[in-house]
């Protein structure tokens, strides 16, 4: 039986470096996600990428900010809107792009596509395309660490839609009950696909409800990368300190459709425009320009560098070989048991 520990409330702002280089790095990280996905739109339109593709554009501050709180030993469990999480985690753009091209060099050898990016080496446990499906899994990763005494954090991203799933509530209860080292990051972009938060939740204050499970829970401005980083650092610190799971409600917004294209019949154009005024990438860039931490020239150079990197990723994905059809039945069961039907 796990011991009952007192809740630990970390001090705000502890150990967060606030220097300009760090801020420029955050910008670059967010911009990489943004430009990468913009290229994805282009490639999807050209039918180079197929399947469902869910873009993260508008939410970049969450992935980039949270990642600042995690070490290489920590684990990430993600959703189907996970390009940003994977890129921020360090999964190479080449591997992601190749995966979306269905190539052998893809990070899941072409088995997963956009929704199922995996990188075991970086402890990136996947894009899970079942809403809420990654939560119990993340609890298990945390349970293993808990049982083996390893001081690691498992960070699980999920959306406001998952808050309606039993799996969230089961996992929240289980993790809090067992004091699992779990960082629950709810990306509340206000829509479960096309259903607005107030149309699918009786109580729309998600942090308030998560707190009901006995977890430390905060709501955070998900459009501000610095606020996200700050909250994530504090929460991760609490998790590492053995205070059990922490819940962060990241209030954010996706600028594009649920999956590639939709008619946006479920929300006003004005609402989208309103949120775009708070664009986490451009807004942050503006702040850095105003603070003279970023020059126009430096911005251009950054853009060129990112574009070149994405070009290389696309080129590599184009050139990469297809996985031979003969391998179709591989990775269904473990290779050592390859003789099964």
């Amino acid at each position, binding site marked *: 039986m796990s011991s009952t520990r007192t809740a630990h409330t970390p001090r705000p702002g502890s150990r967060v470096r606030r220097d300009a280089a760090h801020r420029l790095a955050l910008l670059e990280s967010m911009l990489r996600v943004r430009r990468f996905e913009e290229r994805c739109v282009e490639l999807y339109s050209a039918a180079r990428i197929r399947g469902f593709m869910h873009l993260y554009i508008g939410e970049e501050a969450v992935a980039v900010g949270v990642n600042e709180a995690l070490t290489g030993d920590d684990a990430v469990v993600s959703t189907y809107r996970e390009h940003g999480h994977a890129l921020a985690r360090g999964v190479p753009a080449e591997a992601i792009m190749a995966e979306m091209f269905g190539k052998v060099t893809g990070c899941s050898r072409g088995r997963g596509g956009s929704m199922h990016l995996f990188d075991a080496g970086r402890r990136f446990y996947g894009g899970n395309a079942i809403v809420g499906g990654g939560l119990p899994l993340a609890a298990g990763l945390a*349970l293993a660490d808990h049982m083996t005494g390893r001081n690691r954090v498992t960070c699980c991203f999920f959306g406001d839609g998952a808050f309606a799933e039993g799996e969230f509530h089961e996992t929240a*209860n289980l993790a809090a009950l067992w004091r699992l080292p779990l960082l629950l990051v709810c990306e509340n972009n206000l829509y479960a696909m096309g259903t607005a938060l107030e149309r699918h939740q009786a109580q729309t204050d998600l942090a308030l409800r998560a707190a009901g499970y006995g977890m430390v829970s905060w709501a955070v401005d998900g459009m501000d990368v610095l606020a996200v980083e700050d909250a994530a650092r504090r929460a991760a610190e609490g998790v590492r300190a053995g205070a059990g799971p922490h819940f962060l409600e990241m209030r954010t917004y996706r600028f594009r459709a649920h999956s590639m294209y939709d008619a946006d019949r479920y929300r006003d154009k004005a609402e989208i425009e309103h949120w775009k005024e708070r664009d986490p990438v451009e807004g942050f860039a503006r702040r850095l320009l105003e603070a003279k931490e970023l020059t126009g020239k430096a911005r251009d150079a950054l853009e060129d560098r990112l574009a070149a990197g994405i070009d290389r990723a696309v080129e590599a994905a184009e050139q990469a070989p297809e996985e031979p059809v003969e391998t179709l039945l591989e990775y269904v069961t473990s290779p050592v048991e390859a003789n099964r039907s």
Partner: protein
Amino acid sequence: MTATRTRTPAPAAAAEGRTTYRDAMREAMREAMRADERVFLMGEDVGRYGGCFGVSLGLLEEFGPERIRDAPLSESAFVGAGIGAALVGMRPIVEIMTVNFSLLALDQILNNAATLLHMSGGQLEVPIVIRMTTGAGRQLAAQHSHSLEGWYAHIPGLRVLAPATVADARYMLAPALADPDPVLIFEHGSLYNVSAELPAGPGFPGIERAVVRRPGTDVSVITYGGSLPKALAAADDLAEAGISAEVVDLRSLRPLDDATLGDSVARTHRAVVVDEGWRTGSLAAEISARLTEGHFYDLDAPVERVCSAEVPIPYARALEAAALPQADTIVAAARRAVGDPAPARADTADQRPTAGRPS
């Protein structure tokens, strides 16, 4: 070879030198946890209560609450947690009370356990063992009595086992834990009290193969799990009528041991598949189809299936019994297969194949 009389004795408390199915399963878990620190048991009431069916009784005292982990009634969460723990090197044994409850965790089993290795392009192995009770016969009515193992046997990426004997209950767990892929073990509720003398470890046929539990020459009765004792009893009755039935225990529902099934049918030319699942879309249907595909020209009669009636399993004793495969319905099916539908009559005896009749 002469068929030995292998009618399984009625459930009874473990006699001297004998082990019950329940004790065998517990012993297997105890052995696994002693041998490997990564192994732990997680599920509803596995700890203080001692397991819904008493399988884990006493383990909490030996291994403590960290490794004998009582879970909240959150099948999806604790099964998923088991999968997550397995991903990073643990060897969880997750117990689900009944197969009906496993539906609450079906998402985790199918969409994660069975799928992660593939979706990750081979990066993530899921060495979890999920045990659950299945089957009817104890008047537990429609939400505790179903046999849905056939559904799981449908899913690539899983290994599905159905120990039907005390020895399999004792020895299947270790290879299941050693398997790098998810393994589901279905324990038929009617078997827990069955007792037998445990054979010594060597000679255990592994978890890959089906096993001929009783050799015969006229008809292959193919079954698994809780239907095995019924099939053996039916074989006894058939033997009295001069029909030599071979009883094959599938043991592994996925993958199916096509070779053993095929060999048997190639010898007997007739097959009766006994499956407590519903007939439509059943495991029995799969086996019948495979026999027809692979052994069409060996078949001397249509493959017979004895399955549960297509009804939620009812509570009332007589109704429940009527809904399930029974020794007499197995006998009737076997008789149809050998072309001797009537109860033994002197004037038809000569029409039966002579090969399998006792001299």
